[in-house]
């Protein structure tokens, strides 16, 4: 059976290596609070999530 990657490409399909690395870094960054032992983790998670949303919004020009 073959993969279904047969559709036409557009700007939506551009997922570069840089973007892949940035995505992975954000996921890893979400796990860092295990080292905090503090309520600071709360603010840290909000900042990282907001930064990720801002990044995706910028990437898709919304």
């Amino acid at each position: 059976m073959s993969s279904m990657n047969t559709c036409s490409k557009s700007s939506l399909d551009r997922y570069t290596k840089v973007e892949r690395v940035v995505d992975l870094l954000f996921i890893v960054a979400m796990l860092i609070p295990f080292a905090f032992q503090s309520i600071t983790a709360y603010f840290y998670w909000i900042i990282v999530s907001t930064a990720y949303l801002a990044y995706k919004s910028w990437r898709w020009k919304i």
Partner: protein
Amino acid sequence: MMLLAVIIYMMIGTIIALYAKKGIITQEDYFLANRRVGGVISALTYASTTYSAFMMVGLVGLTYATGVGSAGFELMYLVGTLLLLSYYAPKFWRIGKEKGYVSPSEIFEDRYGKPVATLSAILALIALIPYTSIQIIGSAYLLKIDYTYAVFIVAFVIAFWAFLGGLRSVAITDAIQGIFMLAMALLAVLWTAENVAVGIPESARFPNDFWTPLRFVSLTVPWFFFALTNPQVSQRMFIPKDERALKRMVVLFGLFGLIYTILVTLLGLFLRQGTEIGVFPEVKYRDEVTPALLSIMPEPLAIAIALSVIMASVTTANSIVLTLSSMILRDVVGEKRRIALGRFFVIILTIFLVIFALQKPGYIVELAVLSSTILLCQLPLILGIFHFKIGGKLAGLSTLITGFTTAVSLSYLKIPWTSIAVLIVSFVVFFLLGIFERKH
């Protein structure tokens, strides 16, 4: 007064549903609003479908009881969803449009064969009926009238709007209710800050005895992949009218989720602070934290917030009913043209939900919690469509059966790492049988 608020709510929703019902001819019209939904409405219906009563009841209580780790768990889900949607939503949207997919399981049919799509639909049914019944049970309690009548009222609201106007009606009512849910969460936080406490107690730190790395990962895994594995949200990837609407859906959903999560977790943390300084009673059972808060609020505000919890349940439940109806119709029965049968299944599914909700079986909570873990077994099949060349009917069927069996048996044994095991077993079975299939 609560009942009056619900009656007004039902009337407004019904007027919208009657308006939305015009022009429904095909199954695409009924189940996908003819793939013509704008970005803002798509985002709001996605958010309202995703965020159930768990937020204002479950997550408030979880944060109160276990601290800031709950915010990390929920925000991890949000970041994971944004990641998955930014990569897979365009692919789902385009394939859905090009191949005319309506039910989310149809994406399996071309690659793995009809039996896999059918089994996937049946598993979704098994996983989501108890989960949806819990939404009815929670809302029925909030109505504070005879439980049986309350179940019928909530079930009627869930079924009637979906029955009349299909997804168009569900999406518009979801959008309005989503805004109301957000506004009420904000009001709850402001009132609590003014009348209970502001601040995050040091005892709420992360990690702690509850939020161990194993528990965090085990709870996060099913939610991280929720956007792909849960059909009521994966079907939402088919509905935006164009690429711009699709992008808006993803980003605005993220914004909604971020604000809602911050508000809900702040509420839990402020209440915990209130308990520690002795101005809010200590609540032992965490799902009772929000009801305890409502009991000390002025009645109109308490009713409005309770109504927002009912709305969160209804928006999740009617989307699930509509999606399951499309899956039974197209993947199990094989009917891909008429919509009357789709409406019929909306009623039948709601009757099942009512039966579950009225019986309140002891195992229903466990089954509801298990729903996302059961659906995890579909993940290798979904990723296989876009990334792997191996895997056909045998690999597809075996992955679903072993993943489901693992989820049910390990959770019955109360194994804390059930979701991780389901993920590993499903991928191992998929790859092993995929390689076997290719060689034979």
